[in-house]
């Protein structure tokens, strides 16, 4: 990529590289460097190909690869400088994916379930970067459930994406904690445990941007990711992502067919980053415009006329009602345009902590005396 000076790369990828477990093997050849001669370029002069990473080693047809493609597209559309992004993940198929996008960004493949705390720490140290947390249902709803919860309730400024396939793909298809009760495994076993709905939990814990989408619907997913990146606060996106090898059969509620049949999208989103007036030619009242902190405007084209994406309580009720009917509610479910993030809560300095010098960190004995005096 021309003209890029990426920062320090931290790539710690442990030995979880056995996609062959599924029996559907990865591609051998590298993706050719040639690209379509007429590809559009963004404000930085990059094409979407410039936001790619290495070739995926996931099973052919994995929903995660479509999420990868959507992240690439969203970053391209937002003209994000790749060196301004830190992508952080845990362990699992989902957590391998940061290797497949933004090859010129910072990355940290952390310990299983520990993405949220690594991300929180990184964000505290350097608030200037864009944080992408990429996790899976195993990583976030089981081993990292606590970590997930705390990063959300602290309001860490991040985009937290769960690539949710309801199954442990790397260990050959056991139910994960997000598998719906009553759904069937590939071998025909019925799941008897209740499912964790990460969207419901995120809403309850105060996430200020909550969405659900589907890997098979990029027209919905790409703007959601773009809006989440532009949101200041804890953004959470649950993306249903069918596991081709172990969870794409009849009886699964995370299969392509099931999600397509039961997808209940409440709205469609357009992300408008320019200052141009919004001209969306839809019937009055059918478009809800939400202006975020950084000036990004989200034009929500309502599909469900009664759905209000600014009402957290209503969203929770709506979700529960529809889930009971077996429907998968997707779209931008909740957004608080006036959200505050962790740095605001903690009243930290504007300067990233990692660039503070000794002078600022040790202001001297007179400053200490003042503090001591205030405590007497």
């Amino acid at each position, binding site marked *: 990529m021309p003209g890029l000076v990426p920062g320090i790369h931290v790539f710690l990828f442990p030995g979880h590289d056995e996609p062959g477990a599924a029996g*559907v*093997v990865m*591609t051998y050849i590298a993706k050719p*460097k*040639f690209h379509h001669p*007429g590809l559009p370029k963004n404000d930085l002069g990059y094409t979407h190909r410039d936001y790619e990473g290495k070739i995926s080693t996931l099973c*052919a047809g994995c929903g995660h690869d*479509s999420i990868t493609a959507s992240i690439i597209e969203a970053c391209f559309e937002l003209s994000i400088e790749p060196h301004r992004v830190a992508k952080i993940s845990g362990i699992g198929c989902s957590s391998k994916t940061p290797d497949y996008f933004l090859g010129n960004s910072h990355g940290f493949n952390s310990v299983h379930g520990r993405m949220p705390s690594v991300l929180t720490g990184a964000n505290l140290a350097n608030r200037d970067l864009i944080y992408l947390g990429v996790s899976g249902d195993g990583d976030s709803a089981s081993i990292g459930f606590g970590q997930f919860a705390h990063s959300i309730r602290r309001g860490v400024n991040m985009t937290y994406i769960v690539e949710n396939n309801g199954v442990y793909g790397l260990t050959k298809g056991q139910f994960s904690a997000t598998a719906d009760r009553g759904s069937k495994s590939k071998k025909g076993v019925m799941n008897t445990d209740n499912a964790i709905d990460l969207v419901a939990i995120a809403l309850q814990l105060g996430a200020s941007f909550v969405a659900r989408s589907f890997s098979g619907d990029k027209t919905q997913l790409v703007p959601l990711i773009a809006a989440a990146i532009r949101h200041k606060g804890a953004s959470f996106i649950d993306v249903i992502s069918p596991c*081709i090898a172990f969870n794409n059969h009849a009886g699964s509620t995370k299969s392509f067919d099931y999600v397509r049949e039961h997808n209940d999208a409440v709205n469609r989103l357009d992300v408008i980053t320019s200052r141009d007036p919004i001209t969306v030619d839809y019937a009055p009242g059918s478009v809800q415009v939400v202006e975020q902190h950084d000036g990004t405007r989200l034009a929500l084209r309502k599909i469900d006329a009664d759905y209000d994406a600014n009402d957290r309580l209503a969203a929770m009720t709506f979700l529960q009602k529809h889930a009971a009917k077996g429907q998968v509610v997707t779209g931008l479910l909740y957004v608080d345009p006036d959200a505050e993030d962790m740095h605001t809560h903690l009243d930290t300095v504007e300067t990233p902590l990692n660039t503070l010098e000794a002078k600022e960190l040790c202001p001297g004995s007179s400053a200490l005396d003042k503090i001591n005096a205030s405590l007497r």
Partner: protein
Amino acid sequence: MKPTDISAPDYFHKVVDCQWACPAHTPVPEYIRLIAEGRYSDAYMINWKSNVFPGILGRTCDRPCEPACRRGRVEETPVAICRLKRVAADFKDDVKHRMPKVSAKNGKRIALVGGGPASLAVARDLAPLGYHCTVFDADPKAGGMMRSQIPKFRLPDSVIDEETDYILGLGIEFKGGHRIDSLKQLMAENYDAIFVGSGAPRGRELDIPGRKEAAANIHIGIEWLASVSFGHVEKIGRRVIVLGGGNTAMDCCRTARRLGGEDVKVIVRSGFEEMKASPWEKEDAIHEDIPILNFMVPVGFKHVAGKLIGVTFQKVKAEYDAKGRRNLVPAGEPDQTIPCDDVLVAVGQENAFPWIERDCGIEFDKWNMPQVDAKTFASTNPKVFFGGDAAFGPKNIIWAVAHGHDAALSIHKMLSGEDITERPLPEVNVSSQKMGIHEWSYDNDISADKRYKVPHRDKVIALKDIRAEVELGYDVKLALGEAQRCLNCDIQTIFSAPACIECDACVDICPMDCITFTDNGEEEDLRTRLKAPSPHHDQALYVADGLKTGRVMVKDEDVCLHCGLCAERCPTGAWDMQKYLIDMTYAGSTCQSKARSAA
């Protein structure tokens, strides 16, 4: 749009741009793969079957395939298809035993007028079927203009001898030094069919003041080249002007450089870009220190006492009218006289049929050209066929060969009592190339290499010897590198909608953003909704319906690399890579079993 009918033979043929553009429809990617494998003889025989003169064409073809090559739309330069063809000819083993066997005669006699590529192609196709073919040529050896026009430093005699011998070795009677001066007389000899492949043998004149007076030093390009070729002319003046901008002009100026011309200039009416000469031939001329001067129209030959001293030119400029047509108008600058000792006039070629009596059943049009059917190559006399330059005016060798195949088919059909206007469709063979989970029978890894240059003989040495071939040809290593640049466009992406689960894996992996799943619409509208721009409307959209969501799969064939990643990333095998081989219809191929030399 209607779903694409991929069973129509032309659909995938068009995707193989090089093969589609080739008049003889040579299966280019197939022979390039064989070259990469080191199977030069097999690659040669595929060429031989299709274009008859691989060694000659590998040095001289006008290469309609290369501007069409998909690689040229993906990066700067196409694959060097032509020079790879030469590799097959250069490195093959002895192939004599692979030539068709001389067959028992069927009692029918064919006369072929002219011993150039068109006649030889006809004879090549008909002799193995048992026809007695007699080729007449005014020159002592076969080859026609390939031998007399093309300088030996581009095409050595040994190559012409070898490839004309393969054909003459099929039991063909060659009557060299035998000019046909009367078609009537020839017809009186009761041949079952006559093929006229006598070329466009007359160089166009340049009738401007001084032409007659200075005639001693003004030469018609093609005649002069023939005289050089046969050793009648061995030198030329020090200062030479070549008039004309075609490939003959390029051959003239480079030949002049080797016969004592030190100050050789090519002077052309048109601009540099619009010149008819192939870009590489212009390059080669410039490399030999020959300047090309443009927008200069010759208006008179200057002479003193019957001796040419220069040529006077009017300066012109190009103006375009409302319809975009170019007109050359005076630039308003004073005329310029350029001194010279000799002039070579290479401003075009013309047909000449003084030997065809106008009352032997062959109708001529108002331009004095015979009326020839563009498909069957039949004239208005049912027994007389035309082909090559003789049919539709000057073209290139590869066209003559293509005409020859078609004329041979007509002759064979006529003499079998069949309707010659019924042309059998070519036979198409499509087969999966899958060898393993993602193993293909072809090398699908895309080489990023730039076009390899063909090594040339050192200029100082080359200019000293008119018979020293300038291009040395690729060596095996360079040939392999160049062969790897081929995108294997004949390995087609075949989509099966019932197997597709619309997971987008192919869309995400495609390096060229060729694939889109979207709602159907009219072509105009669909092209605006694809994942990447679709500016080349001559490139097909492959549309398939029958998907669960009711959308259609649309693949823009334009810049597909045929890398097979769509098929590799497809979890259900909805995409497959299948080799598409088309067997063009030749004389006898409908009634004979067709064994391929390679598949």
